[in-house]
């Protein structure tokens, strides 16, 4: 009926060891996931939605008839809307009114996490802003807090609007907020996010910011990048090459 003393000490010891080990690993090999979006490459084929399709299929994201019910993890936004502070009368023709790929920025200082009353959303140690849909009560504070519109609320049951279901991933239920999770389930298997894999032009590059030799860091060194609404201090971790 009770746990033996030995089992208790064994468990406690292992737990302490695991905790110490975790700290050690975090110190030795830190991780900070981030993405670089090459907006120039992305503009070459403006009708391409492969990344969006791949993501939404992999995560059972529905296509809803009413636009104000729409749920999206990754989508295209007009340049002026994606980068309002960059807008001016003389915005270069290359970007004026052109679509830019946007998704959750997995901010270093995520406002959605600060407002969540149930800790259904939180920032993991690898910087990923994660969601626990089991715990979401649908208060939509996070939707209001996110300055990028990255979060969608399920106003209706998504199931009837999914022509095909992917078994690997759950759907959501009515009354729950959802957003991009950087494909954390795929990361756990050592695979890159679905959108990155689907891009034929490699316009999306994913990697570890904490590693100076990673592909994202190399790109950030080589190219000039901008971020969405940096003035808000959220430290977004999606970088755009423009």
């Amino acid at each position, binding site marked *: *009926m009770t*746990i033996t003393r030995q089992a208790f000490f064994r*468990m*406690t010891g*292992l*737990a*302490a*060891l*695991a*905790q*110490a*080990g*975790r*700290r*050690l*690993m*975090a110190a030795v*090999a830190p*991780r900070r996931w981030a993405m670089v979006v090459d907006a120039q490459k992305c503009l070459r084929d403006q009708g391409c939605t*492969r990344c969006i*399709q791949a993501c939404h299929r992999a995560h*059972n994201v529905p296509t809803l008839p009413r636009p104000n019910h729409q749920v999206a993890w990754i989508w295209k936004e007009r340049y002026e809307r994606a980068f309002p502070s960059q807008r001016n009368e003389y915005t270069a023709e290359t970007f004026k009114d052109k679509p830019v790929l946007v998704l959750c920025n997995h901010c270093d200082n995520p406002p959605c996490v600060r407002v969540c009353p149930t800790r259904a959303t939180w920032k*993991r*140690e*690898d910087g990923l802003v*994660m969601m*626990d849909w*089991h715990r979401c009560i649908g208060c939509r504070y996070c939707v209001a807090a996110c300055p990028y519109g990255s979060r969608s609320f399920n106003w209706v049951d998504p199931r009837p609007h999914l*022509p*095909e*279901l*992917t*078994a*690997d*991933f*759950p*759907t*959501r*239920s009515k009354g729950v907020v959802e957003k991009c999770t950087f494909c*954390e389930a795929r*990361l*756990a298997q*050592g*695979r*890159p996010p679905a959108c990155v*894999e*689907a891009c*034929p*032009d*490699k316009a999306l*590059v*994913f*990697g*570890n910011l*904490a*590693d100076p*030799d*990673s*592909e*994202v860091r190399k790109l950030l060194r080589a190219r000039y990048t901008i971020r969405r609404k940096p003035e808000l201090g959220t430290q977004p971790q999606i970088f755009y090459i423009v």
Partner: protein
Amino acid sequence: MRDRGIILTGLALFLGLVTFPAWYNLARGATSRGPDIKLPATEKQCVAPTAYMRASHMDLLVDWREQVVREGNRTYRAPDGKVYTVSLTGTCMLKCHTVKEDFCDRCHNYAAVRSPYCWDCHVDPKLVKPLAHGSAAASEPRPSGSGSSTLAGPLAYARGSVSASEPRPSGSGSSTLAGPLAYARGSVSASEPRPSGSGSSTLAGPLAYARGSVSASEPRPSGSGSRSAP
């Protein structure tokens, strides 16, 4: 007592009607029969002893949920040492209980338990049309450079992270914490000749305890912690 006949007939009728469900079930032989569940053909042993699963599978599932979503720990070592990938649809359903109606639903219906809300979100494999899904994946015009890009992905990943994040199913060592826990759980349910009513509550005690110690210890995703632990 001139109305004796009427009164007695009425009483008999009333009693007969009131006790009808009992008689009906007796006559049908429904009361003595347990739920008619279909056991998986491929596997003999569940992730925990049957008695434990029967009484506390929901606790196990909640525990799994917390481990995967909050801790990022996706492997589970069963009391018999086998290592499973923690996934309701992927492991429980696709590997064993392929038809939800024949297993989950039959028992829940028998026990008059409302179908749990797990299935509001988690996918019953029956709902996945394998053909439609397969053909969609096949017909999707694969980007030409996809081979190299998929290669570049994991590579970049491995370089970036010392590939720390995957406690792979094969790497049984990674779930050291789940091990003793599972044992504690297993031994509880095994050593306890479980009487019907109190069983689940006696089980809940050490379980809750064990679970508490897990969440306190936080074996972190990455397997980074648990890997260097042993």
